[in-house]
């Protein structure tokens, strides 16, 4: 019987085993075909991929290493202003803050980036959140960790389902491109659906524009400094207290792997003859109040590690760097003016400790300058 003569419901008469095989085969073929299309659309999807590390790494690799490297997470990305360091010392400074990174990533970054080329000073901005004993998944990790790093982490920090799971996702994820690029696929789709999802489309467009923007010459970009009028915490909270995102209180344990890694990193920097200063990037007063039970202990523990490894520590207390909630973008990220004040405090302390090769009188001038809210 030819296929034309088959009754309309012939598929119901096929054997279950055969039907099963056809379903599995056609589903597999479809998944594979879509995956190939997604792989081919990589340049298009890359337009939506926010990747601080890749962008900054490519930028720095293509030119001589700046003299002063400012490092840390997104907190440092906003709080340490390279231009202030340049004005104070006449040396080139670069902000290498990476969103979502923590001590484990900095350690790897330092050892890889400074293996061949060494800066004259490393300023490391830290916060209690980066020393938390509870695991918080980090996007930055996926760009840095390798198998040997995982083995090292398991040997030293113990077996953690979260760490192994995150690592497996990084390594196995690219095998299924549709899933691996689902975030970018979603943004691409949302931008196309402007008529139905105007707010989502606007967000997707903003992401694409942000990704397309080249890295500034000193790696520093703060929305307030660039004229974007984002609400400060008070304004955000008053606008919609429920939607306001609070930073989760970290879990403190002096045995947390971050402290050991931090000490190892400071040792490595010392053995490589790279002058280093660690500064505490403070949380907003509102967060300090919520974290009052753990944050002072964590700052003391960070100071201890710095002392044990002969590294200067600038804690930035309220008395030295006064601040209010209005100085913050959100609970943990500083506004531009506060970033300037924190940077100047670190510069003052670095000068006092003779960490800079030469101090410049412009520091004092920068200190006296009138600060204006952009």
């Amino acid at each position, binding site marked *: 019987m030819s296929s034309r003569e088959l009754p309309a419901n012939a598929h119901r008469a096929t054997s279950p085993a055969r039907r099963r095989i056809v379903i599995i085969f056609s589903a597999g073929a479809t998944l594979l075909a879509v995956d190939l299309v997604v792989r081919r659309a990589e340049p298009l999807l890359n337009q939506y991929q926010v990747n601080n590390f890749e962008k900054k790494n490519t930028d720095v690799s293509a030119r001589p290493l700046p003299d002063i490297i400012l490092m840390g997470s997104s907190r440092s990305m906003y709080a340490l202003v390279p231009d202030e360091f340049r004005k104070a010392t006449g040396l080139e400074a670069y902000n290498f803050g990476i969103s979502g990174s923590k001590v484990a990533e900095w350690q790897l970054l330092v050892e890889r980036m400074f293996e061949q080329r060494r800066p004259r000073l490393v300023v490391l901005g830290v916060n209690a959140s980066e020393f938390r004993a509870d695991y918080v998944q980090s996007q930055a990790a996926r760009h840095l960790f390798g198998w040997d790093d995982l083995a090292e982490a398991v040997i030293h920090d113990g077996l953690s389902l979260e760490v192994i799971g995150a690592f497996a996702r990084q390594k196995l994820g690219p095998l299924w491109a549709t899933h691996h690029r689902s975030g970018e696929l979603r943004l691409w789709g949302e931008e196309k659906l402007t008529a139905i999802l105007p707010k989502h489309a606007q967000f997707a467009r903003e992401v694409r524009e942000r990704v397309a923007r080249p890295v500034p010459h000193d790696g520093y970009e703060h929305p307030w400094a660039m004229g974007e009028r984002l609400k400060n915490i008070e304004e955000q909270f008053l606008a919609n207290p429920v939607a306001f995102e609070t930073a989760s209180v970290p879990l403190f344990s002096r045995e947390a792997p971050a402290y050991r890694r931090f000490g190892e990193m400071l040792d490595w920097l010392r053995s490589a003859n790279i002058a280093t200063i660690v500064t505490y990037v403070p949380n907003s007063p509102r967060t300090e109040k*919520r974290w009052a039970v753990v944050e002072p202990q964590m700052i003391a523990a960070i100071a201890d590690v710095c002392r044990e490894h002969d590294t200067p520590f600038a804690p930035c207390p309220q008395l030295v760097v006064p601040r209010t909630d209005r100085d913050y973008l959100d609970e943990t990220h500083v506004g531009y003016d506060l970033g300037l004040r924190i940077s100047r405090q670190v510069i003052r302390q670095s000068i006092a400790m003779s960490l800079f090769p030469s101090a410049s009188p412009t520091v004092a001038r920068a200190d006296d300058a009138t600060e204006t809210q952009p």
Partner: protein
Amino acid sequence: MIFSSWLFAAFFTFVFTAYWVLPTRNARHVLLLVASYAFYMTWNPWLVSLIVGSTVLDYCVAIGLDRLASQRSRKLLLVASIVGNLGILALFKYADFFILSLNSLCETAGVRTNLSTLSIILPVGISFYTFQTLSYTIDVYRRRIPATRSFIDFALFVAFFPQLVAGPIVRAADFLPQLRTIKRFDWDRMSSGAVLFLIGLTKKVIIADSLATLVDPVFAQPDRYVTRDLWIAMFCYGGQIFCDFSGYTDMAIAASRVLGFDLCENFRSPYLATSLSDFWRRWHISLSTWLRDYLYIPLGGSRISRWLTYRNLMITMLLGGLWHGASWTFVIWGAIHGAGLALAKWFNGMRTTDDPESAARTESGIARLAQFGTTALCWLSTLLVVHFAWVFFRCQPMIDPITEKLEPTSAALARAGFFLKHLIVPTQIAGPLWLMNKAPLLCLLVLMMAIQLYEESIRRGRPRLVLSAPIAGVGYALWIIALTVLAPTDITAFIYFQF
């Protein structure tokens, strides 16, 4: 470990493979038991001891009940089991609630008390496994089932991981016999299980989690939204809780099915119910039948006087509400359902007449139309009562974002009161927040109703939609891709885990 996480996918792949590779029934049961405890321990390794304790207690009590002939001794053993199980539940779930309620009661009476709360961690799924073990002991006491001699089998019945943390509440009479046979790998079970898992996953990650983004802000601050938005949020919460819970149940049933076990049905298109009693035959069936068999009927059920029946309904639903959580808002939710059920019973009692002509009348077209109108009206009123009650269910005391302290229940009740009042009375708000920018999400409510209508039509004997094999294959693949792309990146826990 959440069903919709990659960690569960890895865990289940391992358990599934090892289970079907193992040759003997006992080895498989040991594997499932170890896996179940490991599954629970990913939340809190210490709290698994409560499950083990409850298992040992009820295993021993049941064997004692089986062996003893003296009714007095048997009753004592049963009481020991009930006190042990409910004692654990009371301590871990209700102690703080009772202390806080006592404090406020004394304060109202002008007596100063300062009893401090115990702040005990709430073990995930404690209400589910406690009810499960209790039903076993009671059934053995009633000599409806014999006590099992295999400790492994009984422990697996209590801790079987697909239904351990949020049900369905399985009866020993249904589950234990399934452990007596060795399972054979069955492709039909595999394929139907896989499809059911996809349905559950879709309900959870696409519908419930998306609706939550619309619901949460409105319920947290109803005073910042206009009346229309309150109505939308109320119906969206109804959709969210149904898809969240039934999605979990679908995944639990699917995971069990591919391992060769059948769990009971827990939902039957509940939002198509035409009365509250119909709703409870369709919603969380394993709980409602548990409450019926072990509380409502022992209280006398409906075979006693009218007023005592109403009382029994109220008691059953109040305790059913309290089962969900230690909060007065749950009690009020139960009270609304109890009162609604009692009212419906009273109304039905008034209406029942032996009219010989009624059957003939329904034959006519007008009568059929009237019948349809009545059914539609009943459906709508049931839907409204159920959703009004959901407002109390959803308005739980919140944690203050600044002080991180739990607000008093009175604040939650005030929020629920405001919400319900302004469903009727239009709000007068200067500069209300705008909910309609999330309007496309309302399509998900339509999808939810479509799923229920389809399931109902299958139940009524309509044949399932069968696509040709290649189209079905492509459809499944596109479904998986849609789930992958549309699912939110954050994994959220199921609402019923807290109960």
